[in-house]
């Protein structure tokens, strides 16, 4: 609930910041008829900056991702996202350790709600994501309190499979020439999972901290080619 409120606050503040800027721009813009967009209006490639920055800052987890998309009629943006999700994490309350590092794949499309072609886009979209991965889990302090005895617990290469769908909403703007910066927030819902009977992974590559649903987001640097 707290996480949801945080996302809503971020989105509302962002909208408040965006509206006056848009109004100011439109006051000075000379009204003219826009040329019709071509069917294939461009191809873009991009990277999700958050994952790479978190990795560089030795974050506890990171999804390092690149994407490629088509621009159809300046309205429809079919997109493919490929990445590597990494997580090395220790428990705060327990001496547990979790690790995974595996690729993931997403496919989907965005729709541009903005009618004006001024470099800004407000995108909504859907994604379908897949990751087949292996994860490690260890607890060196595993003991039988009643019968006695202790054996350090160490699982290697437990197999996991997950599929999910994401509903995305985001904005992007032209920074310079062919360079664009954008962000989006994503509501992710797990639709399929197959994990080890020993336990679910703490983190699923591309999905994030595992639960039946979760929130995520990305900050994309896109290059129109």
């Amino acid at each position, binding site marked *: 609930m707290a996480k949801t409120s945080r996302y809503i606050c971020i989105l509302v503040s962002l909208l408040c910041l*965006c509206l006056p800027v848009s109004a100011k721009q439109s006051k000075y813009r000379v009204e003219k008829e826009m040329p019709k967009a071509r069917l294939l209006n461009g191809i873009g490639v991009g990277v999700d900056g958050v994952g790479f920055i978190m990795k560089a800052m030795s974050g506890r987890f990171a999804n390092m991702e690149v994407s490629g998309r088509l621009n159809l009629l300046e309205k429809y943006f079919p997109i493919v996202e490929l990445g590597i999700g990494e997580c090395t994490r220790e428990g705060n309350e327990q001496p547990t350790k979790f690790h995974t590092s595996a690729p993931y794949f997403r496919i989907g499309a965005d729709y541009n709600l903005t009618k004006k072609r001024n470099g800004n886009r407000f995108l909504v979209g859907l994604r379908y994501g897949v990751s087949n991965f292996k994860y490690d889990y260890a607890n060196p302090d595993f003991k039988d309190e009643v019968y006695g005895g202790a054996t350090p617990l160490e699982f290697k290469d437990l197999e996991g499979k997950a599929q999910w769908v994401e509903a995305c909403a985001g904005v992007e703007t032209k920074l310079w020439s062919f360079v664009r910066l954008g962000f989006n927030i994503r509501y992710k819902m797990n639709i399929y999972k197959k994990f080890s009977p020993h336990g679910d992974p703490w983190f699923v590559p591309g999905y994030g901290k595992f639960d039946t649903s979760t929130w995520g987001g990305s900050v994309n640097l896109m290059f129109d080619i």
Partner: protein
Amino acid sequence: MKKALFILLASLLCWACDDIDCTLNNTVECKLAFYDQDGKPVGILDTLDVYAEGLDDPLYNRATKQTNLGIPLSYYKDRDTLQLVVYGKDYMMEDWLVIEKENIEHFESLNCPVKMFHTLKSVSLMSNEFIDSVTINYPNVEYNNGENIKIYLHTR
């Protein structure tokens, strides 16, 4: 627009969350339920103690009028032998129950303790003083499971 994006980028980089979401009722016990020979639930009116082979302290002490009770199973052995002792003012009876099982380590979250789940393979009696027979009702011993073992008492 650009200003907003930079503010958001900073927000995304700063946020971090760490929930502790362990199962509240996280005891793993094998539930023993008592029945008469007609299959009706019964409570043992006198006092019942349950011991495990190799342990000095009882697993369950002075149970009275209970129709079922939960017993922890060992983490590392494939076979547990339980001694069930019923006693009153002037008598004492005991029976030995052998449980063969598979142990499955189970973790839930990084901040929750690891537990041992069990799958019951077989259950048998080594004596028949007050227990007539035993059957496995639900083989999976995990959180909040139902009756794992039905114990039919001599009631005639």
